């Protein structure tokens, strides 16, 4: 007599309840036939019988009782002539055992959900091509089988999964960094492969806006948590008299048509870029426990997104731009950022970032450095303040400027030099 017991279907399964019998006493059962259903923590699972025989007795009735693995469920009488299997003897010695052979392709049972799907679609599992690891039947195999059955296309409501698109490792890495969806990029590389160039040319994300916002939130969470965990920030703040700069800018703008008008932000960015030449230790990246100074000044501009979130794409070589060019690039960047059309190259390489919260009425910003950068400049609101001019109190527009520095790379002294250089530059706006 053969015992049919609660099988161990996984290492973490130790009990199950019997949901139902698919056979009755006296039924002939075949090896591999599903004869019972049990409920586990992972759901209802069909249980196969491993021997040919006749059901002698169903020992347990379906019910809520939790049965441990190994509990007797039924007795099966072997067919006449078939030997009763003996329990496997333990090997007599402790000799080194060869590793057990992996089951061959034909023996790997498809996962229950796959079997269920096949059942629903009326597909014969034994006739399917097996493309899964180790020869297991995959969902795709079943779907293909179903299409063949139907003679045309896919069964209604079921879309076959697409093949994995070929992409170079670098392209995959870039795509993950930049949130680019590989499936929607063009593939210009060898063998129709998506390569880095394709990712760089792709819009930064082609996900749906809700997904984009969520993905961006996650990216910000990761980056900022990392920053606050790893980077020992120091903060310096000062206020800078913008009287000369703003008067000069007003005069300049008076000569310009609206489309060529320059905002103070552009002037401040340009001045920051130039000031960084004086304090290059703030311009670069901290990678592998080491500061890598950047020759080029690529200023990241923190841009808030209307749907929520923030991006900080770079204005490349900001120290070498004419003010007009700077303004044009800045406007273009903001427009594209807010319509999710940034280029990945802009996302990947800022050497320092500037955040301008003045428009939002914030007086002083205390920014969190974006790793692997080592500094961030915060610009606050321009306010009127009483400043001494030739010994007399005069009201001038003043801006609060903050610097967050990475203490592993610089100290407050160097950071202070950036702020004082910035102040000096803004007193001679015509030189910008």
């Amino acid at each position: 007599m053969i015992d049919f017991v609660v099988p161990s279907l996984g290492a973490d399964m130790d009990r199950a309840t019997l949901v139902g019998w698919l056979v009755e006493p006296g039924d002939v059962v075949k090896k591999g036939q599903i004869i019972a259903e049990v409920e586990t923590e992972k759901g209802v699972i069909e249980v196969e019988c491993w021997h040919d025989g006749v059901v002698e007795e169903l020992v347990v009735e379906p019910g809520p009782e939790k049965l441990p693995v190994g509990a007797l469920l039924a007795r099966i009488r072997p067919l006449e002539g078939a030997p009763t299997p003996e329990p496997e003897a333990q090997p007599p010695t402790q000799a080194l055992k060869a590793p057990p052979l992996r089951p061959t392709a034909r023996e790997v049972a498809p996962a229950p959900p796959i079997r269920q799907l096949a059942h629903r679609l009326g597909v014969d599992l034994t006739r399917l091509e097996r493309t899964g690891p180790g020869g297991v039947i995959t969902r795709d195999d079943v779907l293909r089988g179903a299409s063949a059955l139907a003679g045309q296309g896919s069964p209604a409501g079921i879309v076959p999964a697409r093949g994995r698109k070929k992409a170079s490792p670098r392209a995959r890495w870039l795509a993950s960094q930049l949130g680019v969806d590989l499936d929607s990029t063009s593939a210009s590389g060898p063998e129709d492969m998506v390569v880095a160039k394709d990712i760089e040319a792709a819009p930064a994300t082609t996900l749906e806006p809700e997904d984009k916002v969520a993905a961006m939130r996650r990216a910000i969470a990761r980056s900022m948590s990392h920053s606050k965990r790893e980077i020992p920030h120091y903060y310096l703040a000062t206020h800078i008299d913008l009287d000369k700069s703003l008067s000069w800018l007003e005069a300049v703008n008076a000569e310009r048509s609206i489309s060529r008008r320059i905002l103070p932000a552009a002037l401040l960015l340009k001045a920051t870029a130039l000031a960084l030449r004086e304090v290059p230790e703030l311009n670069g990246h901290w990678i592998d426990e080491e500061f890598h100074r950047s020759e080029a000044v690529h200023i990241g501009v923190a841009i808030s997104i209307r749907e929520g979130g923030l991006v900080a794409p770079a204005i490349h070589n900001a120290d070498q731009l004419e003010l007009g060019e700077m303004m044009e690039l800045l406007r273009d960047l903001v427009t594209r950022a807010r319509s999710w059309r940034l280029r990945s190259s802009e996302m990947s390489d800022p050497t320092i970032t500037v955040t301008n919260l003045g428009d939002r009425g914030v007086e002083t910003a205390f920014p969190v450095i974006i790793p692997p950068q080592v500094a961030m400049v915060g610009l606050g609101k321009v306010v009127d303040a009483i400043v001494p001019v030739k010994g007399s109190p005069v009201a001038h527009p003043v801006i609060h400027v903050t610097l967050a520095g990475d203490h592993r790379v610089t100290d407050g002294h160097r950071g202070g030099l950036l702020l004082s250089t910035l102040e000096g530059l803004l007193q001679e706006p015509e030189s910008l």
Partner: protein
Amino acid sequence: MTLIAEKKTITYREAVREAMSDAMRNDERVFLMGEDVGRYGGCYAVSKGMLEEFGPDRVRDTPLSESAFVGAGIGAALGGMRPIVEVMTVNFSLLALDQIVNTAALYLHMSGGQFNVPVVIRMATGAGRQLAAQHSHSLEGWYAHVPGLKVVAPGTIEDARWMLATALDDPDPVIIFEHVGLYNMEGELPENGAPVDLAKAKLRQSGTDVSLITYGGSLPKVMAAADELTQEGISADVLDLRVLRPLDIPAIIDTVTTTHRLVVIDEGWKTGGLSAEIAARVAEDAIWELDAPIRRVCSAEVPVPYARHMEQAALPQVADIVATARALVGR
């Protein structure tokens, strides 16, 4: 005409000879030993004329006993000499494999640091001269497999001239592979050369689109391929490994990080070869830099045949290198 460095025209063969003669003039412990290195002048005429200058004790003809004379070179090194052992071709060196792999490579480690083996073993390698299978193989990778050995492959006249001095100065066994196709190569040799660092690969050409990594006899082919690529507007970074063990991994990673595309050109076979090692290292250390599959241009997996057209078909060719690089760049 500038006078920055005096230059003279010289063959690769002469450069090796000059290196050996120079070493023997400067250091009494140095001597040359091998089959037909003396009276015959060397199978590839590398040591021609040296017997006359240094005499039969220091330019020592040996019987055809690769294991004994390579082992004797190792023993002499242990005994305080600085032998240069010439093995006619790498195929023959298999008769001395026991001494090279079981003795030279192991003694320092096995003796807990007591016995280093400052021997230099030179051998010809490679195909292209219709010498057929038993004289044409490139087994550099086999030796590069073994810790304890240093394996170098001068691919230029300058390296042929200057690697030997460093090899002789090295306290450990150094195997120098000279590609038969290079012996007749002619070129200018600056007078003020200096010993070559046996730890560093050398960038022979800087480029941005694709990395071509190679060594030894394939270097001239790769340079020719790089020229063709330049004309097509593809800029190749050519890295000459020079040292096959220990590999200059940072240099390999650097070039891949620069171009993101890699072609390895190796006259050895692909299977289990040096090219496989390089590909594996790049996959281990720089996979996310790769913007295209790694490609290898190697010898066909056959013994090198005699007939010229068949021999050439079995070997990496400039056109293969160009086509492979071009495809990687996506043109």
